[in-house]
């Protein structure tokens, strides 16, 4: 299998704070990478660097053979990276359905002149979007489809997470970045989420996934490739077993647990 995303020696500084320190990793087409680490370790910053929200202080991001370092977020999205946000950023005053349709922005083409002078074409495109969006909403667990005409802001926490994933998938990405998808879900919902991701992978074998997770049960479900970040540095990488056994990883987590005790 070929490499899809390659992050080369990426460092991200905010003033004096080093959020990412010389991080390097790669992910292959069709695989899952789980990123773990204590709060504030730099996991979300990593996503933000990959998706172009931040421009790294140094280092390179190569996606699908193209250097996308510092490219604007919308261009990164057009190249095929979908994402969710840790704090689930939905378009809360729009309907669930509209949220997903907006996710198809890169897959649709209507420009101003088309919209104005060829309403038929624009209308057909929109109708096709509605159809696809409804299919996406029916795909996963939960009853998003039944709630498709509700404003997204009124959804329950677990549904918000699911909707964000559906929206990210709407662009038919090659790589999807999920930032703590199980936050706010109970055990049953988390299990359903894991099942959803597994089913998604079997239906789209080419799709790659990077997960940021705190819930070890989710990580355990995708044990092939796990990376641990602490204080902005990659401290361990490998299978779930190897990473879990790594002394620095245990230190990072135990240290955090001790601080909470």
């Amino acid at each position, binding site marked *: 299998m070929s490499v899809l995303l390659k992050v080369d020696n990426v460092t991200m500084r*905010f003033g004096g704070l080093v959020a990412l320190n010389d991080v390097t990793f790669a992910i292959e087409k069709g695989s899952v990478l789980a990123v773990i680490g204590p709060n504030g370790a730099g996991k*979300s910053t990593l996503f*933000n660097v990959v998706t172009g*929200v931040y421009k790294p202080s140094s280092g390179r991001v190569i996606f699908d053979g193209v250097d996308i370092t510092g490219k604007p977020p919308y261009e990164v999205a057009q190249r095929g990276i979908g994402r969710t*946000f840790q704090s689930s950023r939905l378009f809360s005053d729009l309907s669930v359905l509209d949220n997903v349709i907006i996710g198809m922005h890169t897959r649709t083409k209507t420009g101003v002149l088309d919209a104005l002078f060829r309403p038929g074409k624009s209308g057909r495109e929109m109708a096709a979007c509605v159809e696809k969006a409804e299919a996406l909403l029916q795909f996963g667990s939960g009853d998003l489809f039944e709630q498709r005409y509700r404003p997204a802001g009124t959804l329950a926490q677990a549904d918000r997470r699911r909707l964000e994933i559906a929206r990210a998938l709407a662009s038919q990405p090659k790589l999807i970045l999920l930032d703590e998808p199980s936050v706010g879900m109970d055990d049953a919902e988390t299990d359903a989420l894991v099942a959803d991701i597994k089913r998604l992978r079997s239906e789209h074998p080419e799709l790659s996934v990077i997960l940021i997770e705190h819930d070890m049960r989710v990580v355990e479900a995708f044990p092939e490739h796990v990376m641990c970040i602490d204080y902005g540095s990659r401290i361990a990488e490998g299978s779930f077993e190897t990473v879990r056994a790594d002394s620095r990883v245990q230190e990072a987590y135990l240290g955090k647990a001790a601080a909470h005790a």
Partner: protein
Amino acid sequence: MAELLIQQSVNWITLGSIYALFAIGFSLIFGVLNVIHFSHGDVAMTAPFIALAAAQALSIAFGATAPAWLVLAVIVAVLAVGVIGAVLDKVVIRRFRDAPAMMALVATVALGIVIRELIRHLYPQGSNPHAFPRLVSGVAFEIAGVPVSWLALLVVAVTTLLVALLFVFLRLTPLGLRIRAASEDRIVARMMGIRDGRVFRATFFIASAIGAIAGLLFASYAGVTRFDFGVMAGLLGFSAAVIGGLGSMPGAIVGGLIIAGIEVLAQTFVPDGASYRLVFVFILVIVVLIFRPAGLLGRTAMEKV
């Protein structure tokens, strides 16, 4: 040429000081409430009218000629405008602090209309310009043969004093510290037990009173006042505050000086510059904001993702 330069420099510093005082009000209010109080200029420009009316009333009640009562009238006006500001905050502006920025802008523009119309209707012959006396008259001294008036000196002295007082107040007094805390982070400040109401009231009183002083100095400098002077005072003061960076006191002063500088430069060196001065001022505003989107001394807030 040298004389012209000195003359215009004096004009620049004087006008810049007045604009800075207007700008401080905008900045202070924005810092604490996160609301643009677009009618601040109109509130401030009620001061000359209140002072004129008060002087009139005092001279009728106690005999003597109006100018004698001017000092007292000015004090009355400053306090009255401070109170007006606090009342407007309570009745109108505070309700928009959680609303989208555009709502507050439109509402305060409408408030400006109301204030101007009230002046026009309540003051006798309010539609006409009214002469405003020089608060101090005569020439203080000469620089290379160029006379510097007492009024110019007064403007600069008052501005310096007010800025110093404000600085001390915001850094050293408990209320000032609370105002600063509220402008740093409203929610945190509230959690720490800072009662919003009092902080807002104090902020509005201070901002409006400083605005009143600016309005009085402006009217005195121009020798005249009119019910709609507040529009320009507001636009220029707001521009100065934004160029400097909203919420930043040094920024407001720098902004005021820059705006006045452009105005004076345009009038001095560009043929027919006087009529184009606003064009120059606002082109500068655009250019500054394109290159420094949060103003010269403003902090660019980094959004957490």
